[in-house]
């Protein structure tokens, strides 16, 4: 705290945008969420996977593997969306409530960096937890598909020929761990990222956590019926009343299309993802995050704290 030190700090000057600060906030957010023991959910998830594994014993092989996938991906979807919304909703209102925000914003930290750091922290959490869930599940699924293959081979009458073994392996493994399933996990991440951005926008003008969660969940649910709204707006054959069209158009404009990210239902039954679709989904997500980030900043920049 010498005069020299003060001078050094002053000379360093102030950067308009500093990735270091953003990263510090993101990491802090992640650490905070991790230490809030959110990863206990992994226990629930593991229990679920194991339970499903036992529950469907005795089903046919395709059904068993597919049921495991349905249940696991359903759970991953729920967990990632809930993490995105609740995690984001908890952060900013809580910082305001606890006045922690004062200590951060009275450092040379632009409000934009604060928001960006928070969002990145939540995205990091979603990514890590999805990766953990997916890794755990794929290990279980992989083990199960091999076990089923061995069991089925054992009960086949006689000595199966090479092509027969291959056909059986193909039939079982097509429902097992496949590269396409990773795309479905990526799509879950993108969807959760958009949900987090929505929650960020809401939390900048909401004053309570609960309000943020409820509104964001509503947006999330309505966002799934988006394609319906667009169909009313782009009429094909059926002509809707002008009022319905305008309402549908407003819904289509105001809410993000969450159903677009749903590629698992198709992948689960063996459909091929169209070429380049994942890339375009990624770009779309980047646009969502950018726009919502800007809107959050619009509101938050002049918010009275």
């Amino acid at each position, binding site marked *: 705290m010498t005069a020299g030190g003060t001078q050094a700090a002053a000379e360093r000057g102030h950067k308009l945008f500093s990735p270091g600060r953003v990263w510090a906030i993101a990491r802090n957010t992640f650490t905070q969420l991790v230490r809030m023991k959110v990863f206990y959910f992994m226990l629930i998830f593991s229990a679920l996977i194991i339970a499903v594994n036992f529950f469907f014993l005795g*089903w*046919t092989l*395709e*059904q068993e593997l*597919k*049921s495991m*996938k*349905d*249940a696991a*991906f*359903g759970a991953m*979807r729920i967990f990632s969306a809930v993490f995105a919304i609740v995690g984001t909703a908890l952060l900013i209102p809580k910082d305001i409530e606890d006045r922690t925000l004062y200590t951060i914003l009275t450092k040379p930290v632009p409000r934009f960096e604060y928001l960006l750091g928070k969002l990145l922290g939540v995205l990091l959490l979603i990514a890590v937890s999805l990766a953990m869930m997916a890794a755990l599940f794929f290990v279980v699924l992989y083990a199960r598909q091999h076990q089923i293959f061995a069991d089925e081979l054992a009960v086949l009458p006689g000595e199966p020929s090479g*092509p*027969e073994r291959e*056909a059986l392996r193909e039939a079982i493994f097509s429902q097992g761990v496949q590269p396409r399933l990773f795309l479905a996990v990526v799509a879950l991440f993108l*969807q959760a990222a958009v949900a987090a951005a929505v929650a960020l*926008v809401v939390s900048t*003008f909401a004053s309570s956590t609960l309000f943020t969660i409820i509104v964001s969940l509503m947006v*999330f*649910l309505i966002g*799934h019926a*988006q*394609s*319906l709204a*667009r169909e009313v*707006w782009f009429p094909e054959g059926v002509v809707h009343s002008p009022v319905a069209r305008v309402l549908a158009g407003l819904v*289509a*404009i*105001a809410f993000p*299309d*969450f*159903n*677009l*990210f*749903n*590629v*698992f*239902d*198709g992948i*689960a*039954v*063996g*459909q*091929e993802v*169209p070429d380049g*679709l994942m890339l*375009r*989904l990624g770009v*779309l997500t980047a*646009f969502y995050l950018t*726009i*919502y980030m*800007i*809107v959050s900043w*619009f*509101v938050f*920049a*002049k*918010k*009275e704290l």
Partner: protein
Amino acid sequence: MPWRRVFAGVGLIGLFGIVRMPVEQGMEEELRAAGFREWSPDISSRDQLGQAGFAGALGGFRSLVALYFDVKAHSARQNKDWVEVEKFRNVTTTLQPRFWKHWDMAAWDMAWNAYAFYRREAERHRDDLEGWKIEKVTMPLYLEKGVDFARRGAKWLPDSYRLLRVVAEIYSQKYEDKCAAADWYLMASQAPDAPAYVYRAYAHHLALCEGSEEKAYEVTSALYHGGGKRTPTLRYDMEALEDHFAGAAARGKTLAELEAAAAAPGAGYRDLAALAMHLLEVAGDLSAATAAYGRLARDPEAPAFYRRKWAFLLARDPERAPAAYRALKGLYVADPDAFRQGDLRQLAELEEELSILPGERFSAPR
């Protein structure tokens, strides 16, 4: 609250919404075309799924909702509530029509499980009107439902043999309509993912379908001589068809006519087979029949099973039995698959008659 900024934010979201709407619509249509959106919500599906199920399916949990109804269908089956089973199977197949197992399970539940349940019910009520009603109305109804599920599923999965095979199986095993089953097996065999046995099943059912023996023979012999695996079924069918044609050629003809045909220049083994059959079955002349079959056995054109047939005929003569046994042994060592279960039994009897030592017998059923 900085309201001006809030409005600016809303404006920006709106602008973004307008820009992205056609893009998202385009991607949605692409996904639809790629088979990712085979279920779309409407009012009737809400009644079907219930409020929570509908919301779930709408909220991106279609797979999970389908799984839930799959489980419900399983437990309904355990409770033998077939109306419920049908209802839930309708839901699972509606939600995920491209998962063939849903259709398979639905068809199976109707045409096998429900059908078997009602058959037992019908037996229980054998002497009353209820039994008659079950047998005449309910059981056929469930078969129909099963076929219907499988056919509808097959339409969703045109590139797969699986559900076509299910339809064929129901026709074969439940309706005992081998001809219809053959038609469906043929369709199934044409799917790109069809394993070879589906085509063999087609051939087999065609062989069992009365009136299509010509076609059956064509298909079966093509398989038989095609270099593929000669399964026991293929051999039986081949033999049965040969017998069929021999019998058909012999029918309504006199011995003289048949002998003349067999002796005519350019006569094939078929003419000889007709004569042999006539001698054995109609004339009852064992030694002449044995001689005729002996000629068949030596005919390189004739199928190999005539050698076995001839050897067994030869064995009927006690003096020639040891020689016949040696011949049979030779045939068996060369091609054990040529011996059917019945042939092996016959062989065992022969060994018994000839008092072959147990250690030297080869007829122990495999």
